[in-house]
């Protein structure tokens, strides 16, 4: 695009500085969280904005493991993460393949059913599900959280997979079929190796979702402290009035919960952004 002189002046004197300043504003809450996590009970309540606290109490990150069962919470969260990834990457890929490549009369109808489930408000399903799991005596165990995930119960992931698989050339799978490959063989040997971007995107979304999920663990694990996930444990740190004196500890756990997500983001940024934009373009 040709830029006019005025447009160029406006861009460099006004728009760009604005963008820079507001990105600092966006980042500041995070920086402040980190800064607070290094404070002491006494310096947390000082009315001053010092991004580098005095003193810098790195030991907060060690004592928190003695004061709070973070390791246990992390372990519990990992059950959610692992099952989520398996369900997302394997089971949703199978379903996505069926919707993309196996001709069957009811396919389009089922696909619209799948799409319409994305619109359903979560609360409509939660209450009867709770009743069902309660009847089975499974409330207060991991099962109500794990089973839906293992069954690939996520319409969005299946949708992403299907859209991507449709782009893989038919000739590849036809050639494999000629060589005597079964559908499962084609899926495993042709489709999966050619779908790294979408598998990565779904894998990352699954990790993120399981790590961040709050409502389901709250409902099913609420009274069982020994089964809590990190999100529940962190929320419980909050006293009724957000006790000021222990704020730095809350921020330590927050940072502890943020860092894995930052790492996932750093490694998978490209795929995540492709996945997010893909949903907007084709949806």
């Amino acid at each position, binding site marked *: 695009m040709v830029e006019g002189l005025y447009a160029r002046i406006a861009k460099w004197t006004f728009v760009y500085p604005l963008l820079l300043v507001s990105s600092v504003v966006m980042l500041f809450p995070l920086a402040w969280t980190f800064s607070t996590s290094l404070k002491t009970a006494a310096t947390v309540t000082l009315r001053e904005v010092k991004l580098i606290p005095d003193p810098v109490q790195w030991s907060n990150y060690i004592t928190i493991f003695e004061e709070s069962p973070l390791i246990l919470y992390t372990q519990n969260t990992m059950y959610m993460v692992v099952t989520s990834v398996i369900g997302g990457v394997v089971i949703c890929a199978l*379903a996505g393949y*069926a919707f993309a490549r196996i001709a069957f009369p009811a396919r389009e109808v089922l696909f619209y059913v799948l799409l319409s489930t994305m619109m359903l408000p979560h609360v409509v399903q*939660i209450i009867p599900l709770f009743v069902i799991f309660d009847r089975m005596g499974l409330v207060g165990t991991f099962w109500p959280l794990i089973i839906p995930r293992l069954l690939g119960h996520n319409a969005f992931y299946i949708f992403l997979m299907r859209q991507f698989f449709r782009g893989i050339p038919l000739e590849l799978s036809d050639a494999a079929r*000629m060589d005597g490959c079964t559908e499962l063989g084609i899926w495993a040997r042709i489709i999966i190796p050619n779908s790294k971007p979408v598998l990565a995107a779904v894998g990352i979304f699954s990790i993120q979702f399981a790590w961040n999920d709050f409502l389901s663990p709250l409902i099913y694990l609420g009274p069982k402290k020994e089964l809590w996930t990190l999100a529940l444990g962190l929320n419980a*740190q909050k006293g009724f009035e957000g006790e000021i004196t222990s704020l730095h500890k809350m921020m330590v756990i927050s940072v502890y919960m943020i860092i894995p997500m930052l790492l996932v983001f750093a490694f998978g940024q490209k795929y995540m952004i492709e996945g997010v934009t893909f949903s907007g373009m084709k949806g």
Partner: protein
Amino acid sequence: MSGMAAVGAGGAERPRLSLRWREAINFYLFLAPWILGFLAFTAIPIVASLFLGFTKYNAISPPDFVGLKNFRFLYNDQVFWKSLRVTLTYTVVFVPLQLVSSLLLAMLLNLRVPSMRTIRTIYYLPSILPTVVTGLVWIWLFNADFGLINFFLYKAFEIRGPNWLGSERWVMSAVIISGLWALGGGVIIFLAALQNVPGEFYEAAELDGANILHRFWHVTVPMISPVILYNLMIAMILSLQVFTRIYVLTQGGPNYASYFYNLYVYDNAFSYLKLGLASAQAWILFVLILLLTVLALRTSGRWVHYSGGV
């Protein structure tokens, strides 16, 4: 899908099923886990919740059919109307605000300037954080006495900031601000849409003497209108269902000023075990979302253009 394909190398040893049968079996085998999950975790629960909506049920004694009593109760329930009002107020303010600011931001992030990759990452970052973390961080920032926001207000303008989360008047603003922080997802989608608008369109408009505002209204907006619709619907559906951030930030207080719809559903269902009443509430929300979605889609014909590469 030629007939040849069915006759694989090992075909002779296998039972000779017709291609159609084989594809049907394959289709359902691949889909079996999803179908199982769909039945168990979507279809049956939805039917069950519709049924529960007409019953009195506490998970201990069997459900007791009460007809429209739950709906009549809600009709006369002040807290129900309050929670609906809170949620709709939030939606009406937040959704347009989020939509406009994401689009403007996406346009700025589409400029060619140094270190744009880093800047984009910074704007996207808050949207990937765990909601519980976001909630706690904002509790700290909004703290009346020691929070960063009131500190800045005082230093910069000598304003004594309000007790954001503890005041009926300010709590909604606080909820909206904390929500806007995480607008990254929508921005990314807008950005991709903007990058798909062919440059020639702008050049042609410029030759016709269109200034920057004209180009925005007559080129950018029509070209990305399907994505505007998509972002609008997602934002609407999500903001009617806000739960976790509020649960962490305010628990609905003070005096129900931030008592969102789903908080009331949650309380009825899991704090008071009024599962029938909560199911009725859930269905009201479901119908509301459905109506709004249909409305958005119906009226979209007038302003959404499905031409071009988007």
